[in-house]
């Protein structure tokens, strides 16, 4: 009997050997994979209650960690939450984080490489971990002004930039929300708020699907700036070129045709030069250019302005990629050339295009961050203006600027005109099906000869008159506010 007792003992020991193996696997060998598993919230929770760095605008924190309760030492708090929600995003226990809270997580949590020595000293001093603070390029007064220029209940975005540096001066959209509701430590409130906010259409909970960086919209006539640049760049056209301007252009391979806007002044001339075509925003001349040059030329120029590229990494916000589609038939090419049909751009993309024209054809990297400072206020990074790419030659940029100035001084963007200052601009009205509603655009910069500020406005789902009222005149207010500073 003792022999079988020993065997039983050995069987039990063998089972335990398996246990030691399994424990070693879970806790050491396979631990890395488990820690990286997307369902594993422990990494988020590990610093959830820490003292995160603040996000600062104009010297004042718009997001900061304030002392919380016993269970969670710090609570994330947003001042002026709706105004900045599209930039800060939210920092939630259950729903992760978005916006700068997400993209700057290493800096804000204090776990970036530059803060390594700070972490070491925190360990030795036994002090609470503390994150770096981030100051933004945003001008709080302009941000507030731009936000208030979008009426409540109106869906729209405004991007204000410095074309020479790429710095974002203001970036707003409506509808907005209060990130404090999702950053609360009360799980029930957090869940209820999140689910309720998710019901609101167009709300900028996620920067990659809505708002200035995420909403993919038909650009309408502002896309004609791409056609113009492509035409001049091809060498087949110059500033004096005569363009066909029929009231309506039959679309090749289709029974439909592409008309000029019936209410405008295009019909007074059957041919046009660039100046007239841009001033009155006639459709048929640009459709003709696109059919003449072919889609590759238009697509290449769009790509030089940033279409097809993700600005998300540069801006540290999630963003959507603007598209000028490939494999268009001739009819679709003609329609896409006037910013309808398949071409889609974010407000940020249009702002970047205008910036490039304003800055002699050189597109600057968009920048939202002015400085990142360690907890002891030492500057750990301070982005310098960076050239992203050359979009057009300086001559072409100057020529387009001249025409855009005419659009404001003589043409349909006259609402943006400021006495004593040359303003360059272009409007766009992208029809949304047969609803009679449009996406109404303005993009432009001032002063035309020495651009200090570029403004891009889009108001979604508006009729023509509301759109006209909410775009050019509002751009004027922003130009004045920035230039008078």
């Amino acid at each position, binding site marked *: *009997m*003792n*022999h*079988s*007792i*020993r*065997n*039983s*003992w050995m*069987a*039990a*020991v063998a*089972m*335990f050997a*398996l*246990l*030691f*193996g*399994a*424990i*070693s*696997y*879970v*806790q*050491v060998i*396979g*631990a*890395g994979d*488990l*820690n990286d*598993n997307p*369902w*594993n*919230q*422990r990494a988020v*929770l590990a610093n959830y209650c820490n003292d995160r760095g603040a996000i600062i605008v104009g010297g004042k924190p718009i997001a900061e960690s304030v002392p919380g309760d*016993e269970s969670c030492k710090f609570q994330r708090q947003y001042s002026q939450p709706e105004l900045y929600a599209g930039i800060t995003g939210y920092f939630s226990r259950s729903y992760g984080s978005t916006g700068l809270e997400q993209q700057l997580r290493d800096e804000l949590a204090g776990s970036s490489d530059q803060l390594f020595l700070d972490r070491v000293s925190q360990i030795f001093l036994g002090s609470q971990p503390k994150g770096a603070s981030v100051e933004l390029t945003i001008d709080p007064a302009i941000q507030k002004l731009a936000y208030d220029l979008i009426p409540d209940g109106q869906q729209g975005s405004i991007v204000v930039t410095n074309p020479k540096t790429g710095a974002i001066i203001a970036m707003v959209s409506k509808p907005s929300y209060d990130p404090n509701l999702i950053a609360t430590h009360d799980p029930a409130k957090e869940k209820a708020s999140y689910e309720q906010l998710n019901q609101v259409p167009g709300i900028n909970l996620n920067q990659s699907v809505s708002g200035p960086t995420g909403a993919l919209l038909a650009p309408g006539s502002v896309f004609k700036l791409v056609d113009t640049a492509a035409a001049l760049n091809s060498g087949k056209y110059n500033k004096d070129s005569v363009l066909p301007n029929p009231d309506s252009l039959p679309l090749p391979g289709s029974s439909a045709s592409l008309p000029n806007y019936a209410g405008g002044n295009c019909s007074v001339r059957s041919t046009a030069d660039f100046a007239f075509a841009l001033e009155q925003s006639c459709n048929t001349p640009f459709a003709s250019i696109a059919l003449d040059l072919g889609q590759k030329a238009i697509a290449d120029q769009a790509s030089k302005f940033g279409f097809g590229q993700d600005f998300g990494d540069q801006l540290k916000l999630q963003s959507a990629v603007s598209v000028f589609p490939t494999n268009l038939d001739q009819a679709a090419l003609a329609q896409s050339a006037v910013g309808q049909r398949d071409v889609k751009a974010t407000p940020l993309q249009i702002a970047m295009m205008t910036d490039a024209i304003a800055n002699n054809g050189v597109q600057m990297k968009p920048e939202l961050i002015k400085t990142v400072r360690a907890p002891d206020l030492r500057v750990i990074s301070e982005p310098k203006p960076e050239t992203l790419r050359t979009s057009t030659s300086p001559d072409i940029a100057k020529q387009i600027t001249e025409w855009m100035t005419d659009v404001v001084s003589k043409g349909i963007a006259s609402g943006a005109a400021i006495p004593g200052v040359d303003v360059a601009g272009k409007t766009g009205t992208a029809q949304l099906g047969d609803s009679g509603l449009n996406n109404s655009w303005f993009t432009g910069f001032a002063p035309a000869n020495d651009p200090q500020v570029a403004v891009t406005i889009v108001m979604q789902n508006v009729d023509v008159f509301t759109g006209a009222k909410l775009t050019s005149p509002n751009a004027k207010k922003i130009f004045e506010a920035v230039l008078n500073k």
Partner: protein
Amino acid sequence: MIENLAMPKPRRNVELVLLILALAVGIGASSMVGLNSPAAFDGDFWFQSSLLVVAALAFHLVLRFRAKYADPVMLPIVVALNGLGLALIHRMDQPGEDTGNNQLRWTLLAMAVAIAVIWLLKDHRVIRRFTFISLAASAVLLVLPLVPGISAGEVLGASVWIRIGPMTFQPGEVAKITLAIFFAGYLSSNRDLILLVGRKVGPMQFPRFKDLGPMITAWLVSIGILVFQRDLGTSVLFFGLFIVMIYVATSRISWVVIGLALIVGGGFLASKAFAHVAFRLDSWWNAFTPEVFGRFPGGSAQIVQGLFGMADGGLVGTGLGQGRPDLVPFANSDMIIALIGEELGLIGLFAVVLLYLMLFTRGFRAALGTRDAFGKLLACGLSFAIALQCFVVVGGVTRLIPLTGLTTPFLAAGGSSLLANWIIVGLLLMISHTARGPVDTTPITHAPTLAVKTP
């Protein structure tokens, strides 16, 4: 042999030293929990610690008087595990919850019952008289959770609880002991019969069909638990217990082969026939697929959260009170092993598993040392039951095998489990007392089958 018998050593002082170490483990853990919680070193801490010390020393004194040759390592191991368990359960208590104090009350009761068993029985061989009473008791205990009126109904998918007044109790835990007693008694009486006859197939001698009766009965009982109480863990535990005891009684590997075949066959049928078994297997094998992770009930969220915790703990752990075991459902009972892995790390969990290994090894040691077949079978069965239970629990939490609802002996929150396991330790201590002590020449009353003679 004669020399050994001439100089048996009680080793009670060794036990006392080890016991102080064991108490230091439990109270040390408790004070670490205190340091990391808002209520550091409140009155409760001192009161609970003193009660544990008094109870452990009382147990030690009883052994000095009643079973002075008992194994000196077992009691310290169990006190260390139980003390650690109390600290961990206290650590998981939310404000207003009282699981920690409840566990302490059950610990004291369980130790008192174990002391009573040792005090009253004096010699384990007496228990053999209760062979068939144990069988009847096992049957009653196993059926109780299904009896309307005292059944606590289906709790978390299994019907293994009864309710008496405000208390709930898991009779299956105690049935583990009564079944072991029955098997030990039955097999020690009938082993010759089973041994001598049978057909030889190749190198293995298979039993006669009619001798398979007890095996079939045990299998049916296990399947019954699985079907009616929906408790996979207990079912495997009982059947494993039986296989080992019949193997030890007969030394025939054929029994193990038949038993394993029945387990595999029964398990396969059960997974086809019963949704709860299929879910268990699915949430083990496909734990990391989204549908299984998100399924409730019957999903893998619990085991996966436990694995995340253990991975986070790594080699040295986050420290007691520093982890996030609140993310793991049932961290103070079913998943207490994951809690240890998270907060005490691989090192802490290895230490705990090693304590179990030492505990059942001392149990097997007692089985080897005792001279009567009944004692050998009982000690071996109970020791193997502890080992198997730990294997099922720790293997389930580490995803080595499917997770089942067995309790972790001495650690997990739960009164019935504590009571049963302390009684098991009492029995093992008694058996080790006869194993290590001088050969008893006085005839045991009411134990006519005993035939021990001095050389």
